[in-house]
């Protein structure tokens, strides 16, 4: 879907490395008294561009979701159509 090279399109706001917003405290510590909401980008340790990004973790999560949906589908077939009496409706 990438029709253009993205690296040239880097916006001014994306910033480099750890940080857009110079005045946001860059909290590296785990016990984080000074952490400001919304400064997730302060923890960025490397820049990954479009062509270097392979969303394999997304594939894993969606595969897990599909497996759950499929299993629930089969579960529903046994419970509702083969195992149960009439269900009260209306």
């Amino acid at each position, binding site marked *: 879907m*990438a029709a253009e090279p993205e690296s040239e399109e880097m*916006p001014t706001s994306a910033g480099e490395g750890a940080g857009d917003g110079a*005045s946001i405290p860059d909290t590296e510590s785990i016990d984080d008294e000074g952490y400001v909401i919304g400064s997730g980008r302060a923890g960025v340790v490397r820049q990954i561009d479009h062509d270097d990004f392979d969303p394999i973790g997304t594939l894993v999560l*969606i595969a897990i979701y599909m497996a759950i949906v499929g299993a*629930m589908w089969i579960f529903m077939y046994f419970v509702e159509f083969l195992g149960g009496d009439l269900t009260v409706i209306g």
Partner: protein
Amino acid sequence: MATFVDRYPDEAKVVQASFAVAFIALGIGAFFGLIQALHRTNILRVIDSVDYYTLLTAHGVLLALVFTIFFLVGVFTWAIAKGFERPLPDIRLTWAWFGLMTTGTVLTAVAILAGLVPEIPMSADVLYTFYAPLEAHPAFYIGLAMFIVGTWMAGADWFLAYRDWRGDNPDERIPLQPFMVLTTMIMWYVSTLGVAVAVVFFLIPWSLGLIETVNPLLTRTLFWYFGHPVVYFWLMPAYLLWYTVLPKLAGGRLFSDPLARVVFVLFVLLSTPVGIHHQYVDPGIAEGFKFIAMTNTMFLLLPSLLTAFTVVASVEHGARQRGGEGYLSWLGALPWRDPAFAGMALAGLMFAAGGFSGMVNAGMNINYLVHNTLWVPGHFHMTVGTAVALTMMAGTYWLLPQITGKTVYSRPIGLFQVVLWFIGMVFMSNAMHRGGLLGIPRRTAEPQYQNFDFAAAVGSVGEIRMQIAFGGLLLFLSVVFFLFNVAATWAEDRVDTPVDDTIPAPLSPPSGAPLILDNLALWTGIAVVLVVLAYTLPLASIVTDSGLLGSSPGFPVAISLEALAEAAASALPHVSLDAAAGLRPLDVAAEAAETLEVSR
């Protein structure tokens, strides 16, 4: 570093006012929700069961319409000014729609809550699904009409801003956030037409006594014509936050701008011609029309799955940039200590579960198993009650500093609050789904029956009740913490840089998106054609069957109950106590008569 309130002080005031109304509605609605959860599970009954329906109506209207939509107009106003990088065209118009919406809300809320005071001859116990034959006081409908017209004016305000921006930037792509606002409003204009016709032409004249009867199926169908798109109207601000804000909170960038545009266009096209899937058990609508609605509904899975991919991939991008590795362990590299991020991520997870129960609702044959059972409230407390509401609360932690210039009072309380909401909803919604599978009905103050027990396959009905009540309690506590945090934030002093409000550009930029995606007139036209195709024949057949005005008189809830009580009371002297002891229905009638006498 100036933030939104410094750049657009007038717009920030409108957003603040909208949020304030939304949060007041959230507080009241959540309190009523707690009372209902304790009442219908028979843990604690502080109200009369007759008043349950008043509170249920208030809970539905205040949370599903007032909280969500006032938050929406706040977020959209923010997105328009920020996205177009200019103030709104005329701030007086902006305040006008805010005033109209608020007036309508107050009118509607008064009409509902007056039902709690017997001295006031006013009630609107018609539930959030306010179709005939249940009839409310005219003030309820008139208030709702003002509220809807207010949202139309808000949309006009944003389209005027778009026209001004387009005048200065004839060849640019519409920025992503305003694009989402404009497409959502197109969907809203198309879909509110149905409820406007139902309210203005049928329900208001009917409640005023100008017409004697209505065709209940017609008003039901017109309500659901609006009643399904309205769920996407709630969802779109959450999607806007997921697509544009969540990747930034996660430390990454939106994976694909064109894909986000495709999703919003698909919602314009497919949201409305599906409403009949709420009417699978309605007699009077042919099976074929229901089947068409089901097919359209299944197409709606497409934009939802596109969203699942794009949003998760964007979040993963953030995790990888923060040093995450592996197939699943990258999840640990996300900024979970950030309540704005954690809340939205948990909301997205809950939405995935809600998607499954939604597929069950949408399937025509499986729907019969759960129709009108507690399963359905279980489903929409996952979707609007968590995917939308939790995203809005989480988003508040990032938005409120921008529109007030103040830092959030407490990040740990915020994090605790969003996690508490998730836990509470796990208990309540899960138990509701299971109760629904056992056939426990929804919209019922006392779901217990003489000589009948619901049979549970695993566990017991008592456990399900306990889980619902416990979950409801946790949810209410979560709202209390949220409102406290918001109020404490509002009370703080302004600071220079309350939050990092920059939004990084997408990995795949809008220049890669086909130009046709920005052709709003084309998508509006196709959406209208789809609606005409899906609704002309069903509506024609409903009107042919029993006429435009039908033959159903109103059933104002209070009057019919009084009549019932009187009938029962007059029957009592003729029945000996011995005989009555064996007759359960008479016991119930006698109890009802006593409670009515006490309460009035």
